[in-house]
């Protein structure tokens, strides 16, 4: 008998509490599911709860939705799926590489180089925009390139000032999440518009949206995967190094296969984040690459109280993620997610 198990009446109180929470959790989901099968009359006539007893379920809402009478449903679903899957695959892959590097290799960045980067980027942008009279995009690109070149160059020569290590780099990545998304979304929209004027169409395109999602998922991916890689036994890699296996083959041939559970869990968390994301999609898409949350939110203003069709649309956005929750829960015991918060 472990000390951890509940005994006596406490056990039943805990069970009652959990059941109560379960009811609270599932009632809204149950409600949206049955509402999507109600007829218009069944909705307006006041709440009903049990199909076949309280009301006669119909497939009206679903057939309307699937036949495309309610907006470009298929397009949106496909766009959401393509953007979601590709952004999370790429973010997981690129982020894992960076996380692995931050766990196994030594990085040293001089604080002064970072300062140089920020100052040159700001100064160059202001100079190009307001003194030399370049457009926004041009001055930004030049300022960025110059800042990056100067920062890298300055890290080669001896500079005074403190050194930043791996932990500081990780902190920098994670701190990107603190920036209010509305600022990023709006500025990104303007940057994409400027790029569009130069011939690279980014607003309402696959590339633009996916790129933004990759960038905003990377902090989470690096944060999760770093702890996962750190928990892997280093001996295997050391043995491979003795045999002179190059680092990139160690990573792709040994480390990635070993961290499959972590990669899958991270991929799913990223996918859920991208799939449900609202603000960036609102700013960066208009019609062709609109994602499901925008379509669902749009139902609200367009259809007023047509709950049956709103429910069906909402369910399409919900169901794939609920299925994923079932799969994700299998990884919960692995302790992966604990590592993420230490």
């Amino acid at each position, binding site marked *: 008998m472990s000390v951890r*198990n*509940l005994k006596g009446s406490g*056990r039943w109180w*805990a*069970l009652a509490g*959990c059941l109560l*929470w*379960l009811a*609270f*959790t*599932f009632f*809204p*989901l149950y*409600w*949206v599911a049955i*509402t999507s099968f109600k007829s218009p009359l069944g909705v*307006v006539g*006041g*709440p009903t709860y049990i199909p076949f007893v309280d009301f006669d379920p119909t497939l009206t809402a679903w057939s309307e939705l699937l036949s495309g009478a309610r907006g470009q449903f298929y397009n949106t679903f496909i766009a959401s799926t393509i953007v979601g899957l590709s952004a999370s695959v790429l973010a997981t892959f690129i982020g894992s*590489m*960076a996380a692995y590097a931050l766990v196994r*290799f030594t990085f040293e960045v001089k604080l002064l180089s970072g300062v140089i980067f920020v100052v040159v980027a700001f100064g160059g*942008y*202001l100079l190009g925009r307001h003194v030399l009279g370049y457009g926004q995009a041009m001055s930004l690109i030049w*300022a960025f390139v110059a800042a990056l070149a100067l920062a890298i160059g300055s890290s080669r020569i001896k500079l005074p000032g403190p050194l930043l290590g791996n932990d500081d780099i990780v902190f920098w*990545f994670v701190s990107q999440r*603190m*920036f*209010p*998304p*509305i*600022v*990023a979304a*709006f500025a*990104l929209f303007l940057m994409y518009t400027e790029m569009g004027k130069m011939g690279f169409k980014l607003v309402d395109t696959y590339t633009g949206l996916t790129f933004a999602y*990759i960038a*905003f998922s990377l902090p989470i991916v690096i944060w999760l995967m770093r702890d996962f890689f750190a928990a892997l036994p*280093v001996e295997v890699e050391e043995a491979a190094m003795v045999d002179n296996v*190059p*680092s990139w083959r160690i990573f792709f041939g040994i480390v990635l296969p070993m961290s499959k559970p972590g990669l899958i869990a991270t991929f799913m968390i990223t996918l*859920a984040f991208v799939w*449900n994301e609202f603000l960036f999609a609102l700013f960066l898409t208009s019609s062709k690459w609109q994602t499901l*949350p925008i379509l*669902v*939110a749009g*139902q*609200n203003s367009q259809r007023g109280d047509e*709950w049956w069709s*709103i*429910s069906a649309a*909402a369910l399409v*956005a*919900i169901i794939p*993620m*609920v299925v994923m929750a079932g799969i994700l829960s299998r990884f*919960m015991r692995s*302790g992966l*997610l*604990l590592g993420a*918060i230490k």
Partner: protein
Amino acid sequence: MTRNDPVKHFFIWPALLIVLVISIFPLIYSLTTSFMSLRLVPPIPARFVGFGNYTELLQNPRFWNVAWTTTIIAFIAVTLQYVIGFSVALALNRRVPGEGLFRVSFLVPMLVAPVAVALVARQILNPTMGPLNELMTAFGFPNLPFLTQTRWAIGAIISVEVWQWTPFVILMLLAGLQTLPDDVYEAAALENASPWQQFWGITFPMMLPISVAVVFIRLIESYKIIDTVFVMTGGGPGISTETLTLFAYQEGFKKFNLGYTSALSFLFLIVITVIGLVYLAILKPYLEKHK
């Protein structure tokens, strides 16, 4: 042990470049425009105004109203999430009957799109067609205007936040509880410590670091709230449930008042940073005491 190998640059640069490109532009752009008067509609040439936007914002009662609403929503929601989440995590950790099923199902709300959640909430809270008001009427309460009266609307938004994000707290705290060593509890049981004493004497202090991290993450994320409010009340009635992000959205995307929006975003960033620092400073002595 970390090692040194030129290949490390190949590993880290893709991520570094992408994040740099996407994060530096919003920063530069919004910081510079926050000191300018810039409107896109109707187009007015940019004019340098110094701290003009900031002082104008700080004198605008709407800004304080919005900041206050956001703070109320964030703090009450996170408190409830933490209390409920901790209780549920404790029950799951102590192997409540049916724990395996609960574990899976409690995760679900976290993965549902906030927009969809808000739409479902609107249906449930609807005064004539929703089930909640019918239930209330059955118990003899008056039919309540959940989304059209300020207090109830804020309450409704908070409930939706709690519904959606308590699973995150459960997930994190449960993972933390599972690493606590058994022997401390065995010793406490020998001393005849009551469950109440065990919780405040052992569990809570040992969970403090994880709790601090979880609450911190939730608090910062809660301040960014927009989609639920956008769909549920649209900020109404009036502007009484408007949050910081929604206010910025209205100013930026509806009025295209860019200088003002950028200044607002930076004030927002400052508010979040200050709250984060104060929060960590208050808790630091406790964290060190229990190390």
